[in-house]
Structure formats: structure tokens, C-alpha cells
């Protein structure tokens, strides 16, 4: 039998393939991470500019394209935390921003601790370590970095003093962080190498040389420097024990030591997208709503018959636990995807 010759049409002239853009299944592969029950697929970003060259689609990114597509929305902003969305940005930039937030922003933290008296059960070095981790409420932009050879002066050091004792016969006391007093005039401990001064009116040389009191600087005159939270327990003292020390705080970055990291943590995740492939009705809808622990699904009633249908109400709170695709057959109803260029940052 003779085969019927069908006229050869190029794939691009077929009526349902959109020209100049990718066909929908490839567009999904390019912009979404598919999270199946075993592992996420299509996770890499197809950044290479010639990737879709054979289809005639230009994947390269120009600056104007970025300008047009980039959006930033702040969801929540308190004194202590913040959540915002970045849309249209690449994963490498979001990760770099996260790394920089954790490691490369400067803050002030206690670095040198001069201990005059410590008869508590906490060892000197453990006490110094704990003091270093206390967050201080001060703007690091007003200070400069101090290197090894610099003299500690009022532009690069903050001095705190802690003197606490527990009397004999009383019960144990806790040393809280609000007992750290700020000394705006600099250190009060005298350098021991100085010979006794001949002139009794001159001030003895101390560990820091402050030219003027930090109190007189306009930024600090009404808001004194202190620890951010007043209720951090530094040590516990039993009866008869005493701690007397002076702590110097300097400016540093998280890269050197984690005590200088300004954030408790910073993380980001991609926006989850939950898509129902088929209509889920009736009892299956009830089951689906019960399955999800964060209540992503919701029931809506359609028509007058009163049949229930499940809809996706809060896709943003999906934690990708994959409960909804566990079990037989649920794969056909629900797919989980993540939008590759929409990042929720906290």
C-alpha cells in the first residue's frame, strides 16, 4: 500500500506553538523547580545565554530587562526582624546577599577583657567569651576599625565596667547584662608599668587614652551605649564571690569571629507554588485539606449542588513537607513547584 505523503511542515508553523517564546513545558522547566516525591528536579538555572538558541529564543539578560522585571516587596519590618521578597533576581545574587549579611557587615563587640578580680566559679576565659557574645546597642558607623598598632582612643573603643559581688550569707545572685556600665571617659585601670607620678595632679595613664569623653559627642549625649538586651545572664555568683573587670569593645566583621555578626541569622527560600492538576471534589477534597499541616488548602463550594472543591488558599506558607503527595494516586492531583526567581528572605 502506498504511504500517503503528508506535506512537511516545520514545527514552528504548527498552530499551537507560540513563536518567539518557549513552549509551555520548557518554560516550566526553565523557571520552576519541580519537587517530586523523591527529589527536586530542574534545580539549575539555565543562565547560559545561548541555551535556547536553536529555538530562536534569546536567553541572555540585559540590564534593562533586569530593571523592568525586578521588584522588591517588604512584608514585615520590626525593630528586630524583617521579611521581604525579591522577584526577578538570580540565586547567586540572593546567596551573596545572605553571605554578606552574615559575614561582612561590621558591628561592635567586646574584644579585650581586663580582669581585676574573679573569684567566681566561671573561669576567666569562659567569662571573656560570654562577654564577647553580648550584643551591643550602638551604631558601628560612628567608630573606626582598630588595628594592632593603634592606641585605643575614643574613636575606636567602647569601655564597659562590671563590678559585682555577692555578700556572705545571702543566696546566689545572677549577674545580668544590665550591670555592665558604660565608661564614657575611658578606662579606669591604671597601667601598672608606670612609675608613681611625681606630679600628684596629673591623671595616671590608663589602658586607653581618650582625648575627650564620649559623652560629649553629639550622638551619645542622650542615648547611652549599653547592651541590647538587659536580661542576659553573664554569670552566677555564690556567697563571697566577686567579679571585677573592664571590657573593651571594638569594631569587627563576622568573618573574623561570629560575635561580630549583626544578624541572628539570615535565610532565604524560593516561593512555593502548589498546582492542582485535576479537580479535587467531595471527600477527596476534605481529605486533602486535612492532610496539610500548614493548611494550604481550603474548601470552596461550587454551584447549587453543594459539592465541595479544594482550592489552594495559602501557597506561601507551604513548607514542602510533601504530605499532600504521599500515598497512592495523589501525584495525579497535586504537584509542588518552586518559582526560581522569587525569593522570600528573612
Amino acid at each position, binding site marked *: 500500500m502506498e504511504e500517503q505523503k503528508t506535506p512537511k511542515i516545520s514545527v514552528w508553523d504548527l498552530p499551537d506553538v507560540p513563536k518567539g517564546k518557549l513552549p509551555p513545558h520548557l518554560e516550566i522547566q526553565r523557571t520552576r523547580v519541580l519537587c517530586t516525591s523523591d527529589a527536586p528536579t530542574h534545580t539549575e*538555572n539555565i*543562565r*547560559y*545565554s*545561548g541555551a535556547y538558541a536553536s529555538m530562536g529564543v534569546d536567553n*541572555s*539578560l540585559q*540590564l534593562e530587562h*533586569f*530593571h523592568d522585571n*525586578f*521588584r*522588591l*516587596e*517588604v*512584608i*514585615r*519590618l520590626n525593630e528586630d526582624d524583617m521579611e*521581604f521578597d*525579591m522577584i526577578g*533576581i*538570580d540565586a*547567586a*545574587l540572593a*546567596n*551573596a546577599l545572605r*553571605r*554578606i549579611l552574615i*559575614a*561582612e557587615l561590621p558591628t561592635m563587640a567586646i574584644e579585650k577583657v581586663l580582669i581585676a578580680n574573679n573569684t567566681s566559679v566561671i573561669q576567666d576565659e569562659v567569662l571573656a567569651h560570654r562577654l564577647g557574645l553580648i550584643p551591643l546597642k550602638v551604631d558601628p558607623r560612628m567608630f573606626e576599625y582598630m588595628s594592632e598598632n593603634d592606641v585605643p582612643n575614643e574613636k575606636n573603643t567602647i569601655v564597659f565596667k562590671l563590678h559585682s559581688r555577692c555578700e556572705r550569707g545571702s543566696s546566689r545572685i545572677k549577674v545580668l547584662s544590665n550591670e555592665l556600665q558604660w565608661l564614657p571617659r575611658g578606662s579606669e585601670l591604671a597601667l601598672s608599668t608606670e612609675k608613681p607620678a611625681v606630679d600628684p595632679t596629673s591623671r595616671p595613664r590608663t589602658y586607653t587614652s581618650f582625648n575627650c569623653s564620649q559623652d560629649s559627642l553629639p550622638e551619645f549625649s542622650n542615648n547611652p551605649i549599653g547592651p541590647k538586651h538587659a536580661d542576659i545572664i553573664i554569670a552566677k555568683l555564690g556567697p563571697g564571690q566577686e567579679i571585677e573587670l573592664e571590657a573593651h569593645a571594638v569594631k569587627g*566583621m563576622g*568573618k*573574623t*569571629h561570629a560575635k561580630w555578626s549583626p544578624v541572628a541569622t539570615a535565610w532565604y527560600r524560593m516561593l512555593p507554588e502548589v498546582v492542582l492538576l485535576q479537580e479535587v471534589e467531595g471527600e477527596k477534597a476534605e481529605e486533602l485539606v486535612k492532610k496539610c499541616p500548614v493548611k494550604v488548602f481550603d474548601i470552596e463550594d461550587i454551584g447549587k449542588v453543594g459539592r465541595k472543591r479544594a482550592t489552594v488558599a495559602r501557597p506561601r506558607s507551604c513548607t514542602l513537607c510533601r504530605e499532600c503527595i504521599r500515598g497512592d494516586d495523589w501525584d495525579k492531583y497535586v504537584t509542588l513547584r518552586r518559582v526560581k526567581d522569587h525569593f522570600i528572605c528573612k
Partner: protein
Amino acid sequence: MNAPDRYERFVVPEGVAKVSYERDTKIINAASFTIEREDHTIGNIVRMQLHRDENVLFAGYKLPHPLKYKIIIRIHTTSQSSPMQAYNQAINDLDKELDHLKNAFEAELARHSGSQSRQY
């Protein structure tokens, strides 16, 4: 005990050039840039921006050793442009993108704190 000092991660010592450049003898239009005292934070971003350039055939970065703080970026281009040009262009574009990001962020923050009456 043998770990290097933490400030070595970002302090460039005297006499060491921050960026150095070596052309590849065997392949034309190919070069490696060695950047001292940097890590994935910069390397990944520059690599991503180089991928967006149409003239770049190959772009990659690596840290030869995690305790030696430097990165090597290798770039191959077509004959239309040179690795040096691609690298400069990538860094300038990144600069502009980050400026735009910063402006958008500050505008959004100002708008958000201006309308603090919204409850979340």
C-alpha cells in the same frame, strides 16, 4: 592549631596584587584571573554575570583550597571580544545591578515605613 588567622580571609598583604591575569598559551581568547582574598561571595556572582554575556563561551570559578583564600576565574570568549573585556563588562554590569537593587530596596523601605498603619 594550624589554622591561619581569620583576618587573612580578607586582608591582602603587602606586595601581593589583588587581581592577576594569565593568558592561556594553547587556546586563543582564553585567560585566567586570580583574585586574592576573596571567596564564593564574589566568585559565584561574577560567574553568573559572565554566563549572561553572549560572547562568553566558558566561564567558571574555583577555590583551589579552602584554607588558601583566593579564587581563580577562567574565561573563554569568541573572537568577538576578549576575556579582559568580558570581565570588565561583567563587573560594571554587576555594579549597576547592585546599585539598582539598593535604590529599589531603599525606596520600598521608605514606602513601607511611611504606611506603618498596615497590620500584618
